[in-house]
C-alpha cells in the first residue's frame, strides 16, 4: 500500500453543492414539522407543490436551454428554492400560489440568469415578492394556529380547501384566518392606536415556537459548516439595533426589538435565505456588511413601508449591493501590505 507524502498546503476536498444542500434540506425539517404542527396540513401541500413545480420548471428550462440535466437536477438546490418559498407562503393558500411562485422563481430568477451560480437575486425571494405584489388577497390567507383554527382541519379537509377552495360544512373562512403579529402591529398603528399596552402579541406566540424550530435547524447547519456565522449574526444585530433605536424614539408606534426578532421572518431569513451561497457576499467582512444591511432595511421597511414584512425586500435589495460590497471588502493578497486586489493591478 502506498502512502503518498504531500507537501503543504493540504487542501481539504471542497464539499459538493449536493452535500451542502442535503445539510440545508435536513435543517429545514424541524421548522417544517413545527409549521405543520402549528399551522396545519396546508404547509405540507405548499411544500410539495412548490418543490414539485420548481423541479419540473428547472427540468423544462434545462431542456429549452439545451443544458445537461443531471448536475442541475441532482444538486438539490432547486428543491431548496421551492421549499424555502413554500415556507414563506400563507398556510391557507390556494394550490396555484406555490406553483406560480416556484415557476417564476426558477424560470425567471434562476434559469434566465444562467442557472445555479449565476443568479443575481435569491430565486425563492423573487418568487415570494412576485406573489406578494401580484396576488395581495391570496397572500393574506393566514390561518390561525389556535383552537378551531387552520391546524384543526383534517388532512382531507385541508386538501379540499387547497385544491378546490371548499371548506367543510359550516366553517367560514374568517373563522380560520387571523392576522399575523406583524399585521396586527400594522393595524393597531394605522388606526392610530398605541402598541405599548395593546398586545400585538395576541395569539402570536406560535411564531416564537416556529422561530425556535428554525433556529434549531440553523444551529445544525452552522455545526455542519453549511453556513457561516457572519451573515445571520450581522443580520440579527442589524435588526436589533435599528428596532431598538426606533423603539427608543417612540415606543408607541414602533415595536420592540424582540418583537421584530420573532414576530416575522427574521430568523428564517437570516439562517436560510440570506446565507444562500450564490447571492450573498463572499468575503468575511462583506458578509457582515451584507447581513447588517438586510437587518437594517428589513426593520425600516416593516416600520415605514407598505408591506407587513420587509425581510424579502431587504434581501433582494442587498443582493443588488453584493457586487459593490465584494469589491470594497476584498481581503489583501497574501504577502502584500494593506488592501490590494484587482483594483490596484495594472497601475
Amino acid at each position, binding site marked *: 500500500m502506498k502512502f503518498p507524502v504531500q507537501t503543504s498546503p493540504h487542501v481539504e476536498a471542497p464539499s459538493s453543492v449536493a452535500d451542502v444542500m442535503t445539510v440545508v434540506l435536513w435543517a429545514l425539517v424541524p421548522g417544517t414539522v413545527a409549521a405543520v404542527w402549528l399551522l396545519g396540513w396546508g404547509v405540507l401541500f405548499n411544500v410539495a407543490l412548490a418543490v414539485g413545480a420548481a423541479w419540473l420548471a428547472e427540468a423544462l428550462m434545462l431542456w429549452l436551454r439545451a443544458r445537461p440535466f443531471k448536475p442541475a437536477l441532482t444538486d438539490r438546490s432547486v428543491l431548496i428554492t421551492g421549499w424555502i418559498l413554500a415556507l414563506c407562503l400563507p398556510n391557507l393558500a390556494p394550490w396555484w400560489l406555490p406553483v406560480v411562485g416556484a415557476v417564476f422563481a426558477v424560470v425567471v430568477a434562476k434559469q434566465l440568469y444562467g442557472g445555479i451560480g449565476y443568479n443575481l437575486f435569491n430565486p425563492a425571494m423573487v418568487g415570494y415578492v412576485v406573489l406578494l405584489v*401580484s396576488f395581495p388577497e391570496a397572500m393574506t390567507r393566514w390561518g390561525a394556529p389556535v383552537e378551531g383554527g387552520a391546524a384543526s382541519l383534517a388532512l382531507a379537509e385541508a386538501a379540499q380547501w387547497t385544491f378546490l377552495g371548499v371548506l367543510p360544512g359550516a366553517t367560514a373562512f374568517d373563522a380560520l384566518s387571523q392576522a399575523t403579529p406583524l399585521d396586527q402591529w400594522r393595524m393597531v398603528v394605522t388606526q392610530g392606536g398605541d402598541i405599548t399596552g395593546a398586545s400585538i402579541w395576541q395569539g402570536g406566540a406560535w411564531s416564537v415556537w416556529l422561530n425556535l424550530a428554525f433556529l434549531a435547524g440553523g444551529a445544525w447547519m452552522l455545526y455542519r459548516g453549511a453556513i457561516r456565522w457572519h451573515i445571520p449574526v450581522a443580520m440579527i444585530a442589524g435588526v436589533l439595533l435599528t428596532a431598538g433605536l426606533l423603539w427608543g424614539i417612540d415606543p408607541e408606534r414602533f415595536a420592540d426589538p424582540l418583537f421584530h426578532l420573532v414576530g416575522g421572518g427574521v430568523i428564517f431569513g437570516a439562517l436560510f435565505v440570506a446565507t444562500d451561497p450564490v447571492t450573498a457576499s463572499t468575503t468575511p467582512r462583506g458578509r457582515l456588511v451584507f447581513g447588517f444591511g438586510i437587518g437594517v432595511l428589513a426593520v425600516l421597511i416593516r416600520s415605514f413601508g407598505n408591506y407587513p414584512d420587509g425581510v424579502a425586500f431587504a434581501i433582494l435589495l442587498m443582493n443588488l449591493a453584493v457586487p459593490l460590497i465584494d469589491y470594497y471588502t476584498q481581503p489583501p493578497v497574501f504577502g502584500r501590505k494593506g488592501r490590494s486586489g484587482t483594483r490596484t493591478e495594472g497601475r
Partner: protein
Amino acid sequence: MSNPRLSELALDGLWKNNPALVQVLGLCPLLAISNTTINALGLAIATLVTLLVSNGVVSLIRDWVRAEVRLPVYVMVIASVVTIIELTMNAHFHELYNTLGIFIPLIVTNCIIIARAEGFASRHGVGVSLFDGFVMGMGFGLVLVVLGAMRELIGFGTLLDGADQLFGPVAVDWGVRVLPEQMTFLLALMPPGAFIGLALLVAFKQAVDQRSARRARAAKAARSAEPAAEAAG
C-alpha cells in the same frame, strides 16, 4: 445622397431596424404607457404623427439650417409639433390626455424622433422623409400596442378596455374580458412586467431572425450542392 428604396425603408422601420426592438429607443414611454392597449395606441398615434410632421418639416428646411445650430432648430420643430398634438388631444381626447399625462409632452425627448430628424430627414427629400417617419412611427407604435395588449391581457384580463377614450362613444363596449378576474397577474401591470414583456418581444424577434437565417443558409447550401451533384452524376 441617393434615396434608398422604399421597400428597404419599410423593412428597416418595421422589422430589421425597429426603433423599439432593435434600437431600443424611446424606452421611457414604451415601458410606462404600455399598460393597456388603448393607452399604448393613443401614444403610438401621437408619436407617429410627431415623427411624420417633424421629419417632413426638417426635410423641408434642411438646406437653410446651418450645421452649427441644427440640433436646437430640430428640437424646436419637434417641440412645436408636440405642443400642437398636446393641445389637440386635450381638446378632443380629454380623458386619454389625462391618462397619458406627462408622457405626451415627453414625446419631445423621445430619441427616435430626433434620431430620424438628424439621421434621415436632414439628408433626404421630403417624400422619402415622410415615408421614413411613417414606417418608423409604425414600427414603434406596433411594438407599443402589442406590449400594451400583452400587459392588459395578463394584468387586467381584458382587451381594448376604455376604447371610448380614443374612439368616442361608439366604442363604449368594445372592451372584452378575455380572462376571468381571478386569473389576472398584477405583475404584468407593474414596471417589472413592462421590462419582462419587452424582453420577451426582443427575444421573439431574435428567434425569428435566427430561424430565417438558418433557413437561408440551408437553402443556399442545397443550391450549391445541386450543381455539384449534377456534375458528379
